[in-house]
């Protein structure tokens, strides 16, 4: 601990960093799953989270019980994911990665401006789960309940996802499709089903992330989760885009690192957190352009 104490890091910071890493890992998987089958970097992923967060805020404004709010969040995010698949991903299939990236960039911008039109720049407050922000004391360390919840939920989701991918037929089909879609299809793997599954699972993860991020940050604005998406995208590319495990590790690593950095930097430098974070990202990319958690190999050209 002495080493960490110099860096101004305590257990609470480590716990919070782990929780942030967990949430980012889920976002990373959500982005990575869709990339795996469609070779499409979904920049609009954060806006799915944003839509879920607004659903939670509206539900708490209408006085709905918690479970109904969470239900609404899942319903809205899943519906929006499927809509995105039909209206955006399908027509884009087979186009160059650059075009797909700019197109999802446009969708992100569009969803954000719709939210701005509906809810205004000041946003809404989601209060129903705010009690999770209260701390509990574990051996003299105060830890917010949401920190523990986030770590546990992230771990459960990742285990469930691993089981789905490793133990079920549709999981096998998803893995094969992300390696060689054409061959998988010629073996009888149904493309639309695999893609729908990836989009749905990715949407469900976005809904989970929406719930956890709104607890930590109850003020929901149109740019909710936008910054997180950019950081997670960097993490996913750092980890290695086209395999689920490296992508997840990349997401966790960048979340954990930014949590730790946030705690470690002296207050007068903490505003420069993005600079430190992205400088580190660029440095790592220069050393391992194909990802740190993969065998050295270049990924998709853009």
């Amino acid at each position: 601990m002495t080493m960490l104490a110099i860096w101004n890091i305590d257990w609470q910071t480590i716990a919070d960093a782990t929780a942030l890493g967990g949430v980012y890992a889920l976002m990373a998987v959500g982005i990575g799953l869709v990339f795996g089958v469609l070779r499409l970097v979904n920049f609009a992923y954060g806006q799915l989270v944003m839509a879920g967060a607004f659903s939670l805020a509206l539900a708490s404004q209408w006085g709905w019980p918690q479970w109904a709010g969470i239900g609404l969040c899942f319903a809205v995010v899943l519906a929006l994911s499927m809509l995105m698949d039909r209206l955006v991903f399908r027509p884009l299939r087979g186009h160059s990665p650059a075009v797909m990236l700019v197109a999802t960039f446009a969708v992100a911008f569009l969803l954000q401006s719709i939210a701005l039109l509906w809810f205004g720049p000041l946003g809404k407050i989601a209060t129903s789960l705010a009690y999770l922000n209260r701390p509990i004391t574990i051996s003299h360390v105060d830890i917010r309940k949401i920190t523990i919840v986030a770590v546990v939920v992230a771990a459960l989701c990742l285990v469930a996802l691993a089981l789905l991918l490793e133990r079920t037929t549709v999981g096998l089909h998803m893995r094969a499709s992300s390696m060689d879609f054409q061959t998988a299809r010629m073996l009888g793997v149904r493309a639309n089903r695999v893609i729908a599954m990836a989009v749905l699972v990715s949407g469900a993860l976005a809904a989970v992330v929406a719930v956890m991020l709104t607890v930590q940050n109850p003020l929901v604005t149109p740019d909710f989760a936008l910054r997180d998406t950019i950081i997670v995208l960097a993490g996913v590319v750092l980890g290695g885009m086209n395999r689920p495990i490296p992508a997840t590790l990349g997401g966790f690593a960048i979340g954990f690192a930014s949590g730790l950095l946030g705690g470690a930097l002296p207050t007068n430098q903490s505003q420069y957190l993005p600079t430190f974070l992205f400088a580190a990202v660029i440095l790592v990319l220069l050393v391992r352009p194909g990802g740190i958690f993969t065998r050295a190999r270049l990924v998709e050209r853009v």
Partner: protein
Amino acid sequence: MRSLVVEHLDVRYGGVHAVRDLSFEVGPGEIVGLIGANGAGKSSTLHAIMGVAPATGEVRLGGVSLRGRRPEDVARDGVALVPEGRRIFAELTVEENLRLGLAARRARGDVAAVLQSVYELFPIVEEFGRRQAGALSGGQQQQLAIARALVAEPDVLLLDEPSLGLAPTVVDIVFDALAAIRDRGLGVLLVEQRAQRTVAVSDRCHVLANGELRVTLGPENANDTETMVAAYFS
């Protein structure tokens, strides 16, 4: 088992006319060979049947048209492809590769019996089930690719240059397996570069040049080098 019928097939990629007015049939319990030089249109024919190449003309399985169908639907209808270069999923285990082949299987239940019948043909696939498929040798990967196609219990098996890059002893294993598969009643469409062996094993062997059918040879022509050379360079 149903027959595969190809009629007046044409494949064009932009300005390139890869296959011209090609017609042939693969019946149950038959091996039909398709040989010719590089670029003669052999692989394009297979891709057209699988629905991944732009084609006109007719492709029927048991009288039902396959034209305009997606590759996964063609596979589920009973046409299995062993692709060129084997296309094994190197990062999956041998067993997982085999299970992928089940994706196209229409019948439900009794997977164990299907696997058993494939293991009889290719014992190494059972033996190395838990290994990563990428760790297998080229010949073993080729056996896995054929096994993977067979577990779908297709009516017709298409093979794209299965002997490419294999040692002579392994080529023997592959060709013996093809004969055994024919004897089980499947139709086999074999695209090959090894002309002589293909003619010998086939019931009929079509020679393609420039996308056109030039001549059809029978097993009796296997040692008739002159005819074959003439057909290749016609």
